[in-house]
Every structure is written in C-alpha cells, then in structure tokens.
C-alpha cells in the first residue's frame, strides 16, 4: 500500500511530465490552476495518467472538486 508521500511523488512526476512544471513545485497545498498555472486540457491528461498509475477511477463529476495537489493525493489514498 502506497503512502501519501509515495502518491504525492508519483503525482508530482506525472505533473512534470505533462506540463514541464518542476516536480519540486508540486506540493500538497498548491492549486493546479491558481498556483501551478495548469490549464483544463492538461488537467485531463494528468487525471488519466493518475488513474492509470494507481488503477483508480476519478469520476468526472468529482474532478472539478479536486482543485489542489493534496485533494488528488487524498482521493487516491481513499479510493484505491
């Protein structure tokens, strides 16, 4: 079972791969749009990559609520 730190590290790597944002910038309190300047199309790519990586499904109607890095980490931790 992956710890929250493992999830965060993997998510940070995905964000860096998709957007070029340095993975060190990807910390739990950051908002994807406001702090990391990631657009909606890139968020779709990140979500799909996260789902594949953790074999979890984030329903479309929940995606909009997961605005910070920490939100996605907790969702994955609780739903896999």
């Amino acid at each position, binding site marked *: 079972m992956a710890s929250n730190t493992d999830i965060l590290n993997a998510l940070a790597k995905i964000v860096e791969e998709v957007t070029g944002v340095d993975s060190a910038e990807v910390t739990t309190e950051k908002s994807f749009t406001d702090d990391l300047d990631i657009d909606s199309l*890139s968020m779709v790519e990140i979500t*799909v990559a996260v789902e594949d990586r953790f074999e979890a499904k984030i329903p479309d109607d929940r995606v909009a609520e997961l605005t910070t890095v920490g939100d996605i980490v907790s969702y994955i931790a609780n739903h896999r």
Partner: protein
Amino acid sequence: MVTGYGAVTPLGHSVDETWTAMLAGRSGIDTVDAIDVTDLGVRIGGQVRGFTPSRYMPPMVSRRADPYAQYALAAALEACEHAGLVVDDRLAPRVAVIIGSGYGPVGSIYRAANTLRDKGPRAISPFTQVTTAMDSAAGEISMRLGTQGPSRAQSTACASGADAVGAGMRMISNGEADIVLAGGADACVTAVDLAGSGNARALSKRNDDPTAACRPFDVHRDGFVMSEGAAVMVLEAAEVADRRGATALAELTGYGASSDAHHWTAPHPEGRGACLAVEAALRDAGITGADVDYINAHGTGTLLNDAIETAVLHKVLGDRVTRIPVSSTKSMTGHMIGAAGAVELVASIQVLRTGDVPPTINCDEPIDPDINFVPHRTQHHERIRIALSNSFGFGGHNAALVVRAV
C-alpha cells in the same frame, strides 16, 4: 518587403547554417534512422537532426506540438529576431500568420490512431485535436508571439510554402494585414509517407548511396527524396518596414498560382499548369522572362518534373533560360514538401543579396546541355537582380514567386 527569415532544414537549424551548407554543396540526405525502415522499399530521407525543442519552446508546447509545428515555430522565432520584429499591443491586430504544409502533423495523426487501437479512447489526449490539426503550426506561432491578425494554414502539397508566401503578399496588398509571418513546414519522413510516395514511384530508391540520390536535371535521376523542415519569413508593407526602421532584404514582387487539372501525381505532359503559374508570377511582377536573372527550380529529381520544368522554362523564358543560372537546392535538402517553396525563396533572396548561386549537386550529366544548372559547385554571378522560384505539387498545384533585389 521581406525583412527577416528563419529556417530549420536537414542542412541546419538556421538560415545561416542552411545557406553555408548549400554553398558548400553538402547533402543533408542520409539513411533514415528516426523510424524503423526495415520493411520499406525507400530507406533514405532528409531528416532534421539534433533539433532540441527546449531551445525554442516550453515543455507544455513541445509536448502538444507535432514536429512540423515545432520546426515552424523555431523558424518563426528566428525570422522575428532577424527582422527585429517585436509584436507589441499596437502592432498585434495587424500581424497575420500563414503557414503552408502539404501533409501537416502526419506523425501525430498516425500515433493517435495507434493509441486509440491499442489503449482505447480514454488514452487519447484532449490536445489531440490541436496536435493533429493542419493549422497547429500557425496557431502555435500566433499564441507564442501574440499576433492577433488572421492565422491559418495553406495546403497545396509541394506548393504550400510558396502559396503561403503568395497569400501573405496578397493580404498585405489588399490591406488585411501590415505584417505577415508566412512560410511552410512539413515533418513527413514517416513510414506511411515513405511507403506511399515510394509506391507511387515518385521516390529515389538509391538506398545505398543517399547523398547521390537526389540528382535534379541529371540523366540518371530516379526520383525525389522525402525530407522535412520549415522556413518562415517576415513580409511587410514597405512603409511599415520604414516606420519600424527594419532593413528590407528583398522585395517580393510577383506571385502566380494554377492547377494542372490533369493527374494526382504526374505533371501535365506539356507543363500546362506550370506555364500558367510562371507566366502569372512574371506578369504580377510587371516583368517578362527576359528580366529573370536566376531561377531556383522546383527540380525534384523525378523523371517527369525535371523534363517538363525544363521545357516550361524554355517556353516561358525563351533564350534567356540558356544565359542565366538555374539550380535546384533540393539536390541538397531533399524535398521538404510544404517547406520547400519557403526554404527555396529564402535561398533565392540569399542569391540576390550575395551573388552566390548554390549548386545542383549530383548533376553529372545534365539533361539539357544548353542550361547552366550550376552543377556541383557554387558559382558567383554579378548583377543578379531578379529571381524566380518555382513550386509544383501533387494534385497539380503550381506556384511561382518573383523576388527583386533592393
């Protein structure tokens, strides 16, 4: 006026590198190694080697942009720097972008189809609609530079680059824009394109001797060589260039285009469409064939093109064609499809500026001994004032451009 240009070709990642290689008579053609060519009948091409997207764009852009759009963006940035053009808020609404491409982001289209087959629809990136679109090069350039005039694609196969420049020239003359970034780009050294054009028997099969494969106007030519690249130039109205204090490199004075209405891959046997395009370009420039000092020929190295283009030049220019240099820089770059016309116009302008005429390499036994095809080595000619650049494409698309020294 042309006030700046940039290029990415198999000969280099800038106009300077490309031009230096042309004058040295160096071939950019080699065995293709960026893709698996084991099963292909044609395994040679002109690849852009060592291109580093991060030098020109952030990872977000290089991830979504097909190589054809990356080359175009790199060439556009070089052109703007060359022209000293900074698109500020005042200029932006009057600056347009037109990028020609024969095949567009083909590699990305094939990849998306494979992803759909192998991983299903969920794996298709939402950027796919951007990445696989013909207008993506123009869109990336517009977004990067902040240009707010029209931005669009122009697709007429191998004539795309020349037609884009011609369309840009018209946008300025009819007042639609003050400045146009115009050019062409293609990245079609792919297995599908090598197989398709190979099966159409249009490509050279000289797999064992890549640098000798493209031999325009030589008796032993056996087809063109698929290649990739981009060139973009800054076109602007003379008074706009003056106001900006920009240096004009040449004046674009004539553009003509036509269609063969004959066959998808073979040119019309009498060069009907090619004649129409060249004549229209000369008329548009207010000159006759007798005024032309240099021709950068379409010169692909196919049996048909070179024979018919030679006949067309005799017909339209008369005796004049036997007294001026006529060269095909495709002998070195290969055929960059939609980029070809734009790169070759840049080469034509370099000829006007320097008097140095790049050679037609591999032209060992010229098909027409009366024409100076500038075989093997660069020639220096005095008083080259007017150059003609031809581009003829699959589908019978023909375009010709005339530039004049300033």
